[in-house]
């Protein structure tokens, strides 16, 4: 189960609101490669894992991603303080504002609401861990794109932290995959799914 610590994993202190920037950064909350998706994916996949290493890694990385969703939400919250109606209209933030005011709602920058359709939990540990490697790269590149879209150092600092964490997670998933395949038949990793044995 989960405990909550009343402190962000990394500080967020943004002096200059920007609804235009909030419009794109929201993808790291509710978008196809965002933190909510990552947390949901890893915390869902962990149940089918046959190794203690994979259960540990997916649980702990999934939990860290919940903390990252909180950081992204804090960034969005601080980017949308003290807005004038002129700023809201000029930035194009009006299409979000009309449904959500300056509340936090998990969606992609495109407006698509957060969906479990953006991830899988296949019950096959090799497929799941390989998906997780790709997921961390997709998250990393999204942060690269965000860094291309702003010069504000207050925003860049937490974004760079989150980006670095994706690279570390990628490393950990690679290790978990290797640990799993070390326990399979080296002549054929796909001889059977170690998570499923049908009743005879």
């Amino acid at each position, binding site marked *: 189960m989960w*405990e*909550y*610590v*009343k*402190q*962000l*994993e*990394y*500080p*967020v*202190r*943004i002096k200059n609101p920007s609804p235009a920037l909030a419009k794109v950064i929201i993808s790291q909350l509710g978008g196809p490669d965002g933190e909510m998706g990552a947390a949901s994916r890893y915390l869902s996949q962990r149940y089918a894992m046959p190794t*203690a*290493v994979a259960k*540990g*890694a997916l649980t*702990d*990385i999934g939990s*860290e991603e919940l903390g990252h969703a*909180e950081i992204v*939400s*804090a960034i969005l*919250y*601080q980017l949308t303080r003290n807005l004038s109606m002129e700023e809201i209209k000029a930035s194009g933030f009006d299409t979000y504002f009309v449904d959500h005011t300056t509340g936090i709602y998990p969606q992609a920058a495109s407006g698509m609401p957060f969906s479990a359709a953006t991830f899988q939990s296949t019950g096959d540990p090799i497929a799941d861990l390989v998906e997780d490697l790709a997921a961390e790269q997709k998250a990393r590149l999204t942060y690269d794109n965000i860094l291309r879209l702003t010069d504000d150092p207050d925003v860049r600092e937490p974004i760079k932290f989150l980006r670095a964490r994706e690279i*570390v*997670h990628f490393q*950990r998933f690679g*290790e*978990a995959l290797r*640990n799993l395949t070390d326990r399979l038949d080296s002549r054929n990793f796909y001889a059977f799914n170690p998570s499923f044995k049908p009743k005879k």
Partner: protein
Amino acid sequence: MSHKKQLGRNVQQTRFALIEANLYLDTHPNCQEGLAYFRKQQQLYNKAVAEYEAAYGPLRAFEQTEDSYWNWIDNPWPWETEE
């Protein structure tokens, strides 16, 4: 930097060291160096969080110690800047 901010930063930094060590040990459970690093950071974290909570209130609901009222819910919350 204010005293509260300094203590808070100590907690944040030592906790991050634990998070990082935790993930590393998940995939390297027998690494003695890693375990020693975790143990050291755990001591620093426990000291930092005790110091912060004694002065500024609970960071974890179950560590709440104020008897006159339930200060767990006090502002600010982590997404708010202290103004």
